[in-house]
Each structure stands twice: as structure tokens, then as C-alpha cells.
């Protein structure tokens, strides 16, 4: 019979045990629960007052789907440890991926449970990124190969030759645009968050100047209304990515034949951060498309010529800055993105995409 860890060993031990981000459970040789930490309590939804002494069979359903009891007894009997990946269902019905490591602890059984759900989601996202990119990068490359081949077969006069060269150049630009979107996405995902002191007036001016070389930039009137007077602290590169993508979208999704396309950017000081509103009078977003616009690789219209990473990257940048973003839109009227970024000096709140709703006239 093994005993629960003695109290005297222990302030340090208890602190370590309870603060660990893995769940620890200790069972005796008949698999009755002797001790467990706070994370195990949260993961398996068990309480100390009614779980101690309980046999593994009573609550293993929350981590099983397999005949774990027999396998755990075998660990106790043979002394050979075992690791298994398990799928559990959480309270809200979502899927959780748990990594369960069982080992012999004196005469009983020790179990370490690590929640791999977030890591698993990141891996799934990464795999999707690789898969879709391999497709999206191949497409302009296939077009260039096709154009070169067609030029070889068709060109009989100089005019046709230049026509093909111009199309090849267009595809090369498309390839470049995809790579640019990708690098912005990856920079925010893997980049180190650095806190910069930003003068909001200068920052807005700099962003707009940087984009002035973009095709069709001159077809959109950009008005800025900067009501912020104090310096702002945040990771400048992530903020730049948000501005660049949202301004580029206003250019790309303006009404094609309109002569009054405009984007209003309003920046105001909030209590602990900055609110930035990007409001345009472009083509707007369909109601059924609106809930999907922040998804990776989503392209809502034929005017979406990129890889579909723009708003996904905006969402990631907002998350990286612990901010919030919401969107209101009405097809044919325009779109309004509201971004809140807390000052990096005292931001501790969680980030989220807070709401997606239709704009009423």
C-alpha cells in the first residue's frame, strides 16, 4: 500500500503539484485514487471531497473510449509504463486531445495527463496552411508554364509576344502577392512581440505613404481623423499589418466604377488602449459570407485575388496584441471594422474576435 505524499515534504512540493499545467493522479495497487492535483481536477471534472478513494473505473469514462482499466492494471503488474493519446469530450461538447502517461509508482499507479488540444489545433492549422499554400503557389506557376508554352506555339508577331510577356508578368505578381501575404502571416505567428512607442499621427501617415505605390491606391480617398493625443505602446509591426491589410481590402473591394470610393480611419484614445475604425463605402460583404471572413484561406468573392490570408492575418495580429476586432457590413453599402488594441504597458485581457454582424442602413 502506498501513501499520499507526506505533508512535511512540502510547501514546495504542493506548490509544484498544484501549479503544474499537467494533471497528476496517484492510485493505489487496486487503482483507488489517493491524490491528484488541481489541473487533474479541472481536466477530469472531479472534486477532492468525492473523488478520493474512488476507483479508476468510476471516472475513467471521462478519459476513455478504450478499456483503460485493464491496461492500467497491467502497468501496475509489469512495471512497464504506457503512453496513449486519448480523445475526450469536454462540457461544451468540444473535442479535447489528452496525452495520458501511466507508470508504476511504488506499488500503485501514477498518471500524468497533458491537454494537447491547443497544440493539436495549431498542428491542424499548420497542416492546412501547408496544404493550401502548396496549391496556391502552384497555380500561378502552372499559369506561367502554360503561358510560356502557348507563347512558343502562338507567337508569330511582336505584339503577341509582348501580350504573353505581360500576362506572365501578371502571374509573377500574383505569386509575389501570395508570398507577401504568407510572410505577413508567418511573421505574426512566429515573430517575437516587441513593444514600441508609437506616435499615432506619424504612424498613420507612414502606413498610408507606404501603401501609396499600391495599384489603384489613387482610386480610394483615405481620410484620417486622429483624436488620439498620447503616445501608444504596442508591437508596431503587428499594428502595421492590421492597417496594411484593412486599407488594402478597402482598395480591393471598392465599387469598381465608383468615383467617390473612400475610407475613413478614425483613431481615438480609449481608457486603456486605442480604438481604430476603418469604415468604407465599398462593395460590402454578403450576410452568409460575413461569419467566415476571418478564416484561413477564405475568399468571399471573385475580387479576392490573393491567397485568402489577409483577414486571417489581421485576426492573428489582433490576437497577438491582445485586442478585439469586430465587423459590420452591408452588401452594396460598405464595411466597418472596429479594432481595439490595449496599450502593451498594462494589457492583461484575453483577445477575441468579438462580433460579426450586419450593418443596417
Amino acid at each position, binding site marked *: 500500500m502506498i501513501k499520499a505524499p507526506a505533508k512535511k515534504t512540502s510547501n514546495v512540493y504542493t506548490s509544484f503539484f498544484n501549479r503544474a499545467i499537467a494533471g497528476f493522479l496517484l492510485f493505489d495497487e487496486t487503482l483507488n485514487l489517493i491524490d491528484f492535483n488541481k489541473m487533474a481536477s479541472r481536466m477530469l471534472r472531479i472534486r477532492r471531497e468525492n473523488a478520493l478513494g474512488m476507483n479508476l473505473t468510476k471516472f475513467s469514462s471521462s478519459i476513455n473510449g478504450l478499456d483503460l482499466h485493464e491496461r492500467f492494471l497491467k502497468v501496475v503488474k509489469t512495471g512497464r509504463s504506457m503512453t496513449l493519446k486519448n480523445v475526450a469530450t469536454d462540457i461544451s461538447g468540444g473535442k479535447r486531445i489528452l496525452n495520458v502517461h501511466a507508470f508504476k509508482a511504488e506499488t500503485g499507479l501514477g498518471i500524468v495527463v497533458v491537454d494537447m488540444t491547443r497544440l493539436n489545433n495549431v498542428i491542424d492549422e499548420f497542416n492546412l496552411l501547408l*496544404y493550401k499554400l502548396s*496549391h496556391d503557389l502552384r*497555380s500561378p506557376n*502552372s*499559369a506561367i508554364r502554360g503561358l510560356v508554352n*502557348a507563347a512558343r506555339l502562338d507567337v508569330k508577331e511582336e505584339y503577341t509576344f509582348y501580350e504573353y510577356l505581360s500576362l506572365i508578368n*501578371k502571374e509573377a505578381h500574383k505569386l509575389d502577392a501570395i508570398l507577401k501575404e504568407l510572410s505577413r502571416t508567418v511573421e505574426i505567428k512566429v515573430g517575437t512581440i516587441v513593444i514600441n512607442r508609437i506616435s499615432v499621427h506619424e504612424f498613420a501617415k507612414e502606413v498610408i505613404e507606404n501603401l501609396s505605390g499600391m495599384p489603384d491606391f489613387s482610386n480610394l480617398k483615405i481620410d484620417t481623423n486622429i483624436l488620439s493625443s498620447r503616445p501608444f505602446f504596442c508591437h508596431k509591426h503587428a499594428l502595421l499589418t492590421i492597417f496594411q491589410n484593412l486599407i488594402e481590402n478597402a482598395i480591393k473591394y471598392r465599387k469598381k466604377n465608383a468615383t467617390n470610393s473612400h475610407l475613413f480611419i478614425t483613431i481615438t484614445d480609449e481608457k486603456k488602449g486605442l480604438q481604430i475604425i476603418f469604415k468604407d463605402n465599398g462593395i460590402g460583404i454578403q450576410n452568409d459570407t460575413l461569419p467566415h471572413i476571418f478564416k484561413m484561406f477564405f475568399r468571399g*468573392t*471573385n475580387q479576392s485575388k490573393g491567397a485568402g490570408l489577409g483577414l486571417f492575418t489581421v485576426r492573428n495580429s489582433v490576437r497577438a496584441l491582445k485586442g478585439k476586432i469586430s465587423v459590420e457590413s452591408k452588401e452594396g453599402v460598405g464595411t466597418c471594422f472596429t479594432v481595439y488594441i490595449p496599450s502593451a504597458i498594462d494589457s492583461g485581457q484575453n483577445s477575441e474576435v468579438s462580433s460579426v454582424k450586419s450593418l443596417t442602413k
Partner: protein
Amino acid sequence: MKNVLLVDDDEIFNLLNTKSIQRVGIPAHIHTATNGKQAIDLINEYFQGTSILPDIILLDLNMPIMDGFSFIEAFRSIPLPMVKLVKIVIVTSSDNPEDIVRARELGIDKFMTKPVTDSDLALILSGLN
């Protein structure tokens, strides 16, 4: 004269395939659409108005608004017996095995990777009844 419908969101491929069909010298009326929904609208408005359907559809898979697989399902639900006679060829940059399996499940047996060559197109078009 064959009716050919080219469906690709990248208009370059519609242009390349048009040029290729012209080069191989098989007489054809060529129609283009840039996504599945536009193709369905075109079929409803034009082809049904003329009481004919395309003989062949060269179809991309990855398109905004309505992708290639959704197009196939929508197209097959058009209540015309001739729908079954229309040959659909998937033309895509992806050679993902899952896409090939899904296409087969939908009864599509011809799957080509971009860019399509003149000889591939000549073979497909000359094989039409």
C-alpha cells in the same frame, strides 16, 4: 460544333484553354465562367434557353463562392435528362489524392493537372460523341 464550358476563377487558365482549343483546330463554341455559381447561372440562362447543354465542362476545384465539387452537385440536380451525358473534366493545380477520390465518388473519372497541354485537350475533345 462542340459546346465547351470552361470554369476557373483564374481567367488566365480560361484564356489558355481557349487558345489551346483553337490551336488543336476542333470547332467549338467556348463559354467561360469564373466560379461554380456563375457557371450554373450561365447554364440556366443560356444553355437552357437554347435547349442544349455543354458537351464538356473543364472544371477547376478551388474557387471562391462555389467550388468545383459544389458545382458538380448543383449541376447534377438540374432536372434535365441530358445532364448525365455532359462530360466533366476536373482541371486543377492540386493533385491531392482526397480530391481524386471525392471526384470519383461523384462519377468524375477524368482529372487533369494544370497546365493542360494541346494534346490532352485534343484527346478529350476528339473523344466526345
